[in-house]
């Protein structure tokens, strides 16, 4: 009965609309990367690349001058750089959730969004890795973080969560890149076989590695894809858990809590989906991809934001409860200080954007309206940045002894670097949109109804009738 009803639901709402054929999918997606570069693209990349170069300049300035150009001081030794790191790593998590977890759960709708969500992951993690990378100050000593034999016979301290982070985030980036490239191979082969110019054919031929689409290749390919999805799935949960241990294993009130790993993971997926939604709405509008990224796709992502947003809201209230219930004076003070102290403005921005805003997604009208969800996704992005700011800064600025307290403010370099990281992110994303098929063509073709051999039983129409009969019978039973 339930199987039959599922079939009915699937027929009512096709994953891909507009009566696509295999050829029309190839044509629509490939032609975006093959067409003449649109003028607006030059304008967009001109702006984002300028911001990116400003970022690179600021990094140079930081290496030259030292991290004193940031607003850091004692007691606040971690400021915007760490906030930005956690913010960007978190954003990446939605891409991995879409490409790995939704794949294992056989969520076929993911095929329309997985390619650019994974690209977003890669670029977000690049932005993230820069911040702790330059935070070490003497970046020419950064190799100390890796277990490399050196003249002092010293090794990294494997008991330190900061070192776990190096391994967790480094692995995360590399595995995401391998997974993304695996998915790209058949699509690059599609573009290779359409290429009109010699250069295109050679470049695409090189990157598609001579893919021939034979089932003897697909067999290994599909298993490799499944294995990579299986390997990435624990990463969705582990990477941000490890990031949270940077805080949770310390003794600072407001950091030293066991709720951090699940709370960070929920927040990461929440912010990531907000970013995927933002990018998807822009890309589908500009490139006319409404048939591929339908309103159903956006609605499903909004529902995930509603779920994870509620989890985040629950974590906020749970933290407060435990601060009171623990009876620990410092813990209680830290939380009252967050809500009513000098950083109350940041705290309430966070609560409004992360707890109140996503609750509007309970209404179908809200979660199916593109302009409204766009604004809401932006607000969630803002809120999630503030969440990390609240955690990092408000906890540090007022710790155990009032004599140590201080108010932290960023400098222009802090602000410039945060904005600059968006320049880097969007520059990479624009390059991706221009040259790489932004939707996984082979995967979309595989979820079209005519990709299933059973679709053709008896002239291709009988099967539909058979399903309807099954539903009717199921209803009777």
């Amino acid at each position: 009965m339930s199987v039959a009803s599922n079939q009915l639901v699937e027929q009512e709402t096709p994953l891909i609309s507009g009566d696509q054929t295999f050829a029309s999918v190839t044509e629509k997606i490939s032609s975006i990367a093959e067409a003449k570069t649109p003028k607006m693209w030059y304008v967009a990349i001109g702006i984002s690349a300028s911001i990116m170069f400003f970022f690179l300049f600021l990094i140079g300035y930081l290496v030259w001058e030292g991290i004193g150009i940031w607003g850091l001081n004692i007691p606040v030794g971690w400021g915007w750089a760490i906030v930005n790191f956690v913010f960007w790593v978190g954003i990446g998590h939605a891409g991995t959730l879409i490409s790995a977890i939704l794949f294992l759960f056989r969520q076929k709708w993911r095929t329309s969004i997985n390619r650019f969500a994974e690209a977003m992951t890669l670029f977000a993690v690049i932005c993230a890795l820069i911040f702790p990378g330059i935070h070490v100050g003497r970046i020419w000593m950064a190799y100390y973080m890796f277990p490399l034999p050196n003249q002092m016979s010293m090794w990294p301290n494997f008991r330190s969560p900061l070192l776990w982070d190096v391994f967790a985030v480094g692995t995360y980036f590399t595995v995401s890149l391998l997974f993304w490239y695996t998915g790209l191979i058949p699509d690059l082969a599609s573009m290779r076989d359409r290429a009109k110019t010699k250069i295109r054919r050679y470049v695409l031929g090189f990157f598609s590695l001579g893919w021939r689409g034979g089932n003897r290749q697909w067999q290994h390919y599909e298993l490799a894809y499944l294995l990579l999805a299986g390997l990435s799935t624990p990463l969705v949960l582990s990477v941000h858990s490890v990031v949270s241990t940077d805080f949770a294993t310390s003794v600072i009130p407001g950091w030293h809590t066991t709720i951090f790993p699940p709370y960070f993971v929920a927040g990461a997926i929440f912010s990531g989906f907000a970013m995927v939604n933002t990018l998807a709405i822009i890309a589908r509008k500009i490139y006319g991809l409404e048939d591929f990224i339908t309103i159903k796709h956006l609605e499903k992502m909004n529902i995930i934001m509603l779920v994870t947003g509620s989890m985040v809201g629950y974590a906020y209230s749970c933290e407060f409860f435990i601060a009171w219930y623990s009876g620990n004076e410092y813990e209680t003070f830290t939380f009252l200080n967050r809500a009513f102290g000098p950083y109350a403005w940041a705290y309430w921005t966070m609560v409004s954007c992360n707890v109140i805003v996503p609750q509007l997604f309970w209404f179908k009208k809200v979660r199916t309206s593109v302009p409204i969800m766009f604004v809401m996704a932006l607000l969630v992005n803002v809120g999630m940045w503030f969440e990390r700011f609240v955690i990092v800064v408000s906890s540090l600025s007022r710790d155990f002894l009032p004599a140590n307290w201080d108010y932290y403010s960023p400098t222009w370099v802090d602000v410039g670097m945060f904005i600059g990281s968006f320049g880097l992110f969007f520059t990479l994303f624009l390059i991706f949109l221009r040259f790489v098929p932004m939707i996984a063509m082979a995967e979309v073709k595989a979820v079209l109804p005519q990709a299933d051999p059973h679709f053709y039983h008896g002239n291709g129409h009988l099967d539909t009738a058979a399903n309807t009969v099954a539903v009717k019978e199921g209803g009777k039973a």
Partner: protein
Amino acid sequence: MKKTQYMIAEFENPAELLKAAEKIRDAGYKKFDCHSPFPIHGMDDAMGMKRSPLGWIVGLVAVVAVTAGVVLQWWTSSVAYPIVIAGKPFFSYQAYGPVAFAIMVLTSAFVSLFGMLALNKLPQFYHRLFDSDRFGKVTDDGFLISVEADDPQFDVKKTEDLLKQVGGKNVEIIG
């Protein structure tokens, strides 16, 4: 080097390709392949193929990698340069989980991709099949069967008849 000849035939859709594959398998052919723009469900059985060994390879590598990760952490902090940090034992295995896990995932992911490429004998930038103009369609919306002339069952006339009989169109010899 001896160049292998291929005979290819086009098919209408995934269902026809699947049916044709079953018949060619039943006719005793071993060296043939079914090309399609996406993997087709049930094709492995239709072609009479064994399961890919990649899972076992990656599984074995994962076990080796996670062991190597623990050994690395034990050796560096207990043997190579023992140093007391925060009063903890040299071999504080409780803290070694995240790094050992990361090393396992990283290594296994590399082996998944490169193992897949090795099993598929990729990269192979030139292949006889690319000489056919029709072959380019398989990455778009084409469904093709290619039979190697090396196959013991291969016979120009008989194979052509078989391919036509199972619904193949535009039968062509490459090479």
